[in-house]
């Protein structure tokens, strides 16, 4: 009884996603000079929550006997985010316009910065569209971040990778198909967009970043006017049938934007 497998409960699709991230996905940015990024800060913060969760899961996976309760709760959180992203249609935009050559921790930093600068994320429905010029400066910034942060992570990366590899071998190709599809999509880089960010602004106010996240993702501040909470509500409940209708306008806005993006990117 005690020889049972312990903690390989991490769903394969999580591992697949992370594995792919480190391999063959470095060529799309070059192919798409016109990268236009569209994303609400709610999506960004959801993305950073996802990244945070994936890092936690990876660390769990390294342990022979992780805290099972904690790991299961984190995996369920990831499932929930994935479900919501699939349903609210936020990920197809990313698929076509953006890619990632970063690991999750890099992106975490990148999105954190965005949370900080976007004080105006109060008005969630205004999506910020960034032109190529802006994007360029930002990419430089991100690159430098990548360098610093990858120096911090490699301690656990090779090991975990090995674990996933093994996990992957066990997997049969049948069940890998749908998950590949899903994660092929949203593993791609989250759009990092700020309206005209200045570097100084980006690095200011470091410690408050997660307060924004808190407000966004726990969504408890009972401000009656349209704020992050309302958007959260509409997005997070969008997959429950009862609320779909009430959020229809928001959803159709998103879909329309998706469509425009597809046209611009030429996919």
């Amino acid at each position, binding site marked *: 009884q005690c020889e049972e497998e312990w903690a390989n409960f991490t769903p394969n699709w999580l591992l697949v996603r992370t594995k792919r991230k480190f391999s063959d996905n470095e060529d799309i940015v070059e192919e798409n000079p016109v990268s236009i990024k569209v994303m609400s800060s709610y999506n960004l913060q959801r993305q950073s929550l996802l990244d945070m969760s994936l890092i936690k899961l990876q660390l769990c996976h390294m342990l022979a006997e992780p805290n099972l309760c904690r790991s299961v709760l984190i995996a369920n959180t990831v499932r929930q985010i994935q479900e919501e992203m699939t349903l609210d249609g936020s990920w197809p935009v990313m698929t076509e316009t953006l890619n990632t050559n970063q690991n999750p921790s890099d992106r975490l930093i990148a999105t954190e910065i965005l949370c900080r600068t976007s004080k105006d994320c109060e008005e969630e429905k205004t999506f910020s569209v960034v032109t190529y010029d802006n994007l360029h400066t930002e990419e430089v910034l991100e690159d430098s971040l990548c360098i610093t942060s990858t120096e911090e992570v490699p301690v656990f990366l090779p090991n975990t990778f090995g674990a996933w590899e093994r996990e992957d071998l066990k997997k049969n190709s049948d069940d890998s198909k749908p998950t590949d599809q899903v994660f092929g999509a949203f593993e791609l880089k989250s759009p990092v967009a700020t309206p005209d960010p200045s570097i100084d602004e980006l690095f200011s106010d470091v410690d408050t970043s997660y307060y924004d996240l808190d407000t966004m993702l*726990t969504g408890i501040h009972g401000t009656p006017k349209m704020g992050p909470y309302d958007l959260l509500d509409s997005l997070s409940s969008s997959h429950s049938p009862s609320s779909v209708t009430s959020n229809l306008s928001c959803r159709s806005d998103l879909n329309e934007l998706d469509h425009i993006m597809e046209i611009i990117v030429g996919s």
Partner: protein
Amino acid sequence: GQMDTQTDLYERWSVTDHRWHFIDSQLLYIHYRGPDIISTVEFNHTGELLATGDKGGRVVIFQREQESKNQPHRRGEYNVYSTFQSHEPEFDYLKSLEIEEKINKIRWLPQQNAAYFLLSTNDKTVKLWKVSERGRRPEGYNLKDDDGRIRDPSTITMLRVPVLQPMDLMVEATPRRVFSNAHTYHINSISVNSDYETYMSADDLRINLWNLEITNRSFNIVDIKPANMEELTEVITAAEFHPNQCNTFVYSSSKGTIRLCDMRAAALCDKHSKFFEEPEDPSNRSFFSEIISSISDVKFSHSGRYMMTRDYLTVKVWDLNMESRPLETYQVHDYLRSKLCSLYENDCIFDKFECVWNGSDSVIMTGSYNNFFRMFDRNTKRDVTLEASRENSKPRAILKPRKVCVGGKRRKDEISVDSLDFSKKILHSAWHPSENIIAVAATNNLYIFQDKVN
């Protein structure tokens, strides 16, 4: 009756006047050093003894001093009675894995003779310990001398009868049973049945039933492990036997539900007989909903009519006859609701707070951060926040209630949410079975508080 007296007492000293105080700093405030964080606290059935287990695998038992007329202020002090190493760090060679010695739970057996018995468990192994006193020793053996050496047979010329001679009191702890090799996952709960013959041990996915006398066989009574571990979405977080129906037990889950099972129904209680779940409030929905609804502790009331569950932000009292929603819900630290993302990031959101009933089931207590703990009076609906801290509590001083300020202006004596210390948390506490004495573990420190006399 006794229940009324208890309530009156509580009214008088705790909530109305906040008259908590240390009895004696030297003896009632016990300070552990080093890595030995207290991981469990438990009074025995009379309240005469208090056991703590720590991260280093040690069990420390405190005994209450007898009342003395000469020193009335020393009434009820708890002094160290016995200390022993219950669990040692082990190494699982098959899995290349270290098994921590940390004591996860201690449960006392009802006392049946002069000796005391307790169960202690780490992640994998439960042990039954006998704690007994020795005040006399035999002297005058024929074949060996008083030091235990064999005597030269030629010197033995007469036969004598050994006699028991008084000696300094010694407290011995001896391991009587070791229940091992039955848990693949980490044991989170043990509970002695009211038949006093069996007990159960629960890990993340299974619950086993043991006879206290038999170590090489246990019965699996709950198993929620899916055939494919990738489908695992729920774990068992706590389990307990009913205080007087020996066929009934409950277990709680990481999805915020409680299942009550009847062992008479089937050998394997995969089908619960009652399922307690509160419908989710859609207005509070967030990504953290499931995590904060995960139940960290479940405790039957002494009467057996109610049970109490603790989740991350609340403590709930359930009537065993009502499965649809809790009877009472108390907010422990609702001001953290807006900080959940940070608490997720720093892993505090996975902290497992325990909860306890007072002797008459009228007051409940549970812990929080910043060395704060909370008490809720079920009758008056009043509550109080107190602090277990060496700095803020002088010996015999009355404990001041603390208040956390939520937004807006901070008044004097209030502490703002942002300055709470999340490394100081009160996870474990215990309430004397019949008196208003509580034991609170704050990292390495054990605090014992008692209501003011007169």
